[in-house]
């Protein structure tokens, strides 16, 4: 079932993007002539189309991935934990302290089994680079009244919620 407001909005969007045939475009132009609401929506679509066009043009021109892999590897190396020294520690103590070792091992095992799940939520930090598109995501979105919204990412990966309508 068609929705008249959605239909006109989609046609205006197509008109702004030059996707209508000359006849359809002329019909639409006549239909919205003198209608301030439709003209405002059309202006919004044109502004968005222009922003998106520039975005796409500049992605190719400005993308500079030289050193990207090195930067990622540097971050991985920096955040890699130091090797464990548990083996040497046990060797140093020797067999005479076996009961204490048994107790310490039991406590340590308890700590690992119980603590790891508890602290997992806090300690898990995503490894992100500046401008990484993954540093922001939209969980939900709704608009009110005659407003609409489009989500897109700039060439720098920044998330933009572009709200249209009056």
């Amino acid at each position: 079932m068609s929705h008249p407001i959605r239909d006109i909005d989609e046609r205006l969007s197509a008109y702004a993007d030059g996707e209508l045939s000359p006849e359809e475009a002329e019909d639409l132009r006549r239909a919205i002539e003198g209608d301030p609401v439709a003209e405002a929506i059309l202006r919004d679509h044109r502004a968005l189309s222009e922003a998106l066009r520039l975005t796409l043009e500049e992605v190719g021109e400005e993308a500079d991935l030289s050193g990207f892999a090195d930067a990622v590897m540097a971050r991985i190396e920096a955040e890699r934990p130091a090797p464990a020294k548990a083996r040497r520690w046990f060797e140093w103590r020797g067999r005479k302290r076996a009961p204490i070792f048994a107790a310490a091992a039991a406590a340590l095992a308890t700590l690992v089994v119980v603590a790891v799940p508890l602290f997992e939520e806090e300690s898990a930090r995503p490894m992100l680079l500046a401008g990484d598109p993954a540093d922001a995501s939209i969980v939900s979105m709704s608009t009110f009244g005659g407003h609409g919204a489009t989500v897109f990412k700039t060439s720098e990966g920044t998330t933009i919620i572009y709200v249209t309508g009056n």
Partner: protein
Amino acid sequence: MRRTLTTIGISLGLALWALGLPHAAKAAEPRRATVAVDIVRASKTPGRSDPRLEKFRMQLADFSFKKYKLLDSRLVTVEEKKTVSIPLEKGRKLRGKSLDVTFVKVEKDGKVRLRLLIPEVLDTTVSLSLDGVVILGGPAIPSGKNGVLFLPVTLVNVSS
């Protein structure tokens, strides 16, 4: 044998007690998120952009606007499950409106979930990592002739 069992028991007790400490402390003190909200007016009138907008220069450079002006800059701290309202008085046509920021929760991957509400315009929930930015903007939140408001929202800090 008895001595060994006693030692094991004490060790386990201490380990469990130590595990409880951070949770007790966390229960007493709620998490807080520090969020920066800038109010930027973009216009197609040629001119110099505000030097304070350098951090957003790259993000906003994709748009065809000629000039950007920083109208206001707010740094707010919001507790988990609480809302802070930021008046958008500087954006003329938005006078009386606000951006309501709610700290929903910290997700498993460490990102922070924020609900951003401009009453009667937009209601969105976003997930941001530290220093992550989401920019709200567009013709629906205009500011003066030939101008559009952009509201970059940046997650600055999260206290655990």
